[in-house]
């Protein structure tokens, strides 16, 4: 999260957090902050084991804080936030993910320092300030704060524009916008909820096969040999993928196979496969991992995948 990622101000070990926070006195006037260290900036990309640890800390200490801010590597932030949304069902406090959209290597080149200068105060620390304010007064759900938009984590996608709003979501999943203050949307979760349900059981043995650009039968065969507990096929053309799958998947294969498409209504029903056209890809992957962690019954998994577990199902705009 630091603006100039040198060894001096990067958070690599637990002891780095306090000096790092001390460099931003402005955030200390907003709230009392208790930092918790899980993984350093220079460590490997976080995975489910780190997210489970994070979820457990939040679940265990939910009553101690007004909200939680998670600063995270951008690359896997969406997956992390999706995981937390399924892990912390009915969460009663805001859990806000944020980070820095300045890539780690950028700060090293002299020419790129101009970009850092341009972003200074607008994209990096501002994300943290906004995320903190959301943690204080924002909606009780898992969300992502970047630029001037707060979006529901499990309906978010990465934007392809050169905007500080690195993440976007359909209108009903935009939970707040920021102009001179934070404007909470009517679609944000408020009011009473059932008790928090913490479930850290995820099955990470899920394979993804991308049929969007090419229907690679050889790759699918290789994946099947690895015996994953679930497979997700990504395709823009479900009907065509279906024809290929019918020839490749053995009848005896009893693990759930999801066909994910971004194009709704583009498929017919199938008893053998679970079609998903109303969830983001990231949410689909994480939900399948979560569902496999709840049950190994294929039919029950199919039901769970269709159920709106954590407000992850995309709704049509009115």
């Amino acid at each position, binding site marked *: 999260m630091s603006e100039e990622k040198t060894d001096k101000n990067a958070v690599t070990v637990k002891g780095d957090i306090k000096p790092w926070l001390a460099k931003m*006195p402005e955030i200390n006037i907003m709230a009392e902050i208790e930092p918790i260290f899980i993984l350093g900036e220079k460590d490997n990309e976080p995975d489910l084991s780190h997210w489970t640890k994070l979820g457990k800390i939040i679940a265990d200490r939910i009553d101690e804080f007004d909200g939680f801010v998670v600063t995270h590597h951008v690359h896997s932030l969406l997956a992390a936030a999706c995981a937390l949304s399924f892990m912390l069902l009915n969460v009663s406090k805001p859990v806000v993910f944020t980070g820095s959209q300045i890539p780690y290597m950028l700060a090293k080149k002299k020419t790129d320092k101009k970009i850092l200068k341009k972003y200074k105060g*607008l994209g990096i620390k501002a994300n943290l300030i906004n995320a903190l*304010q959301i943690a*204080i007064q924002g909606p009780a759900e898992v969300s992502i704060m*970047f*630029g*001037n938009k707060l979006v529901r984590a499990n309906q978010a996608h990465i934007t392809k524009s050169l905007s500080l*709003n690195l993440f976007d979501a359909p209108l009903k999943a935009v939970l707040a916008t920021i102009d001179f*203050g*934070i404007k909470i949307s009517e679609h944000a979760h408020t009011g009473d909820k059932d008790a928090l349900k913490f479930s850290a059981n995820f099955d990470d043995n899920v394979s993804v096969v991308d049929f969007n650009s090419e229907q690679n039968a050889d790759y699918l065969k290789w994946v099947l040999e690895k015996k994953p507990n679930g497979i997700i096929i990504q395709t823009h053309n479900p009907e065509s993928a279906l024809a290929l799958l019918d020839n490749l998947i053995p009848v005896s294969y009893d693990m759930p196979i999801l066909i994910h498409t971004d194009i709704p209504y583009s498929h017919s029903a199938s008893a053998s496969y679970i079609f998903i056209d109303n969830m983001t890809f990231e949410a689909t992957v994480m939900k399948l991992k979560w569902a496999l962690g709840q049950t190994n019954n294929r039919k029950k998994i199919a039901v769970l995948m269709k159920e709106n577990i954590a407000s992850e199902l995309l709704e049509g705009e009115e």
Partner: protein
Amino acid sequence: MKIYFFGPTTEIANYNKAYEQILEQLTKAGLQTFSKTESSYVTPISEDKMAEIQAAGQSVLNHVDGIVIEATAPDSEVGYLLAHAILQKKPTLCLYQKGAQIKKTLSHLGQNIPPFIIAKPYQKSDLESIIAEYINLFGIDPEYNDVPNIKFTLRISQKISHYLHWKTHNTKKTKADFLREMIQEIIENDEKYKKYIINRKK
């Protein structure tokens, strides 16, 4: 100068009058102020510009020149605005009345209150001088601010209107320019006023 004013709405009934007084003084000092109410935002930033800022993911606060906060009523947005003000180095005036908790909030900054943040207790009678001090942050002395940015409605007789029309017809001056220049000339020749300004500065 575009100034964003914020007063918490949590105890609006108690502080509305104070907010109005501050806004009035800021306007008198020649600043273009705007604030938000619970239901609407009135800003001098055009709709197109706002849409552009929103799409770029930028902070709207970066497009104002300064921030004024009435921080007597406790509100988490005060700390939030101050944080953005510090981050963006915006000249900020933080006003509070007796008993306000803002001093405790600011104490978290320790000795590091930036020079562009002025935090002051105030009474109605102090407002003018405090705002003058705030305006100095922009390098503008209100008494020497010649920018005609204060809207002033003046009722005139048909006779004066006829004269103004005759006087400015076929010239490049507007009626408003003519009147402004005339008043400017009066100010420059008013020795009594000049003495008053010098004494006030002392």
